[in-house]
């Protein structure tokens, strides 16, 4: 968990420099890394559903090129505040840009893929 956090912080720093990130993403078009954060509230059924859905979608569509971290807003309210989290669960796509918030239990797979830019907008 700790290693993950450190990595996240590093990634967040990177994200701040949008131009650099953009150029980086241009340089490595094939191996885009998806930095995802899933904010949940404890182990409620909805949280569990959201985590399961997220993992499933990532494994199916982003195998090997994603970094998913799960954050409990009860445990780490400051992170939730910094990330401007209102609705829970929220899956934040920090990278690649643009930033997207996918809220809900991620049960609508098409909608999630749309949010992750893995599917063109209809």
């Amino acid at each position, binding site marked *: 968990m700790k290693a993950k956090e450190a990595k996240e912080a590093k990634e967040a720093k990177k994200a701040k420099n949008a131009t650099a990130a953009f150029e980086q993403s241009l340089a490595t078009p094939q191996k885009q890394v998806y930095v995802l954060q899933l904010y949940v509230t404890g182990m409620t059924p909805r949280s569990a559903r959201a985590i399961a859905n997220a993992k499933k979608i990532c494994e199916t569509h982003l195998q090997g090129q994603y970094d998913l971290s799960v954050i409990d807003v009860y445990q780490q*309210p400051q992170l939730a505040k910094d990330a401007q989290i*209102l*609705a*829970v669960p929220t899956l934040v796509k920090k990278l690649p840009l643009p930033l997207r918030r*996918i*809220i809900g239990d991620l049960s*609508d797979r098409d*909608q999630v893929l749309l949010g992750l830019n893995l599917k063109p907008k209809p």
Partner: protein
Amino acid sequence: MKKPNDKLPPALAKVPTGIQGLDDLTAGGLPKGRPTLLCGAAGCGKTLLAMEFLVRGAVEYGEPGVFVAFEEGIADLEKNFASLGHDLKELVAKKHLSLESIHVERSEIEETGEYDLEGLFIRLGQAIDAIGARRVVLDTVETLFSGLSNTIILRAELRRLFRWLKDKGVTAIITGERGEQSLTRYGLEEYVADCVILLDNRIEGQMSTRRLRIVKYRGSTHGTNEYPFLIDAGGISILPITSIALKHEASTERVSSGIARLDAMMGGKGYYRGSTVLISGTAGSGKTSVAAQFAHAAAARGERCLWFAFEESSSQIMRNMRSVGIDLEPAVRRGTLAFHAVRPTICGLEMHLVTIHKLVRQFKPRIVIIDPITNFSAIGSDEDVKAMLTRLIDYFKMQQITAVFISLNSGGDSAESPDNAVSSLTDTWLLLRDLQIGAERNRALYLLKSRGMAHSNQVREFLLTDRGVELQDVYVGPSGALLTGTARVTLELEEQAQALVREQESAGKERELERKREAMEAQIAVLRAEYEVERAGAAKLMEQDRMRNTLLAGNRTDMARRREAAGGRAGKTPKQRQGAKR
């Protein structure tokens, strides 16, 4: 101002807002521990009122507050309120205030199934607990509706949020945009049902007036009307108008009008303290001068006087009054007299009312002059103006302020029915008129009414001299009409001539009498002389008689003696008889 009754415990605990007037309207403040909905269109002052609730709560009542801004950034908030005299940064540093900015960016959001707003709850809960907040403002929570499309979830969550705030025991203000059909665009009034306050900004005749109305206040009495309010450097002031009952104390103290002879017309003492004086008259009849005389006298007594000039600038008034010997400048320099000179058209009636209230509160005058009230008709209907003046009069009476209203008449026959029909509301009514007699117009003063005192019914001519306003002696012409101007002067001269004639006549009479007396004295002297002569003559006669008697007596004795020798006693004198007995 209306105060909650101290004897009875309030049915509903309330939290004072500290906002001027709002606590009067709500009889104590907002419902404690409950959310209040504050709705209104853009630019009504919702955010300001809500922020003032927090700032005053923190500063005046020691209740920390959390402000959650859904629309503005924290930096913007700080900047906006700094211009209104609130240092938010300092309050935040002292942990009296917490500013939270929450952005909902529609373009970032994709909704995929069920969710709740626990993130908002946690954030809010953290902010409240961090500073021990007792007050919370959510401005404007409705923004969530534009960011999140699932209104079913949103409504359920808002309902939960308001209940949660209640459970937390914080007094909250929830702001909401005014909707087309309902109070708020998203029907927040359904959830926040305890107290709903509506703000409004209306434009009438090119003038905008902000108004506040308490739509609903569960479990409490409240003012039901629309109340104008003012936003300025000192924050919000609301004017509760009709909550004022007619319960002011009537003073028996009298204040001089500054014109000795006018005082004499009012029983020798002048106006009642706290009464309302209407000075009406046609243009140029000297209304302002009479009022200035009053202000001048007040300044001499050391009383504070506030002059609302809606026609002239203060320097113009002072210059003009100096020309009739009323120097107001020293009082202005001492700070006992203040002018507030604006054009009435600068804002709406209510705004004027609020401004007057505010200035009176600040300056605390004992005398207020409004010159003239007639100009208000330019910005409102007669009814509105009358209503406004009624409120004003009530307010002045409550404050025991002697108020002078100057009213300009259009002249002619309507001189006794001044515009705005405020005469019934005022206690003393001075009517100034130009009387046209012969080929001149002269000023005359009528004391049409003066409640609660015996007052003169005479029409008096008055002059604007270089020593101020002076009432003249009453000269009534042969027909019974008041003589003024040259007619009065003529009569005065005539009377003087007549007096001279009379004086001369009486002097002549006196001389005649003296002559008569002298003649009489002479006669007396003559008579006395005659008498003396007669008396002298009489005395002589009497002497002669006496001497004759003596002589006769002597002769008798002689004869008696001689008769005794002849043998008789009868002729004896008594003395002789006594001597014989012995």
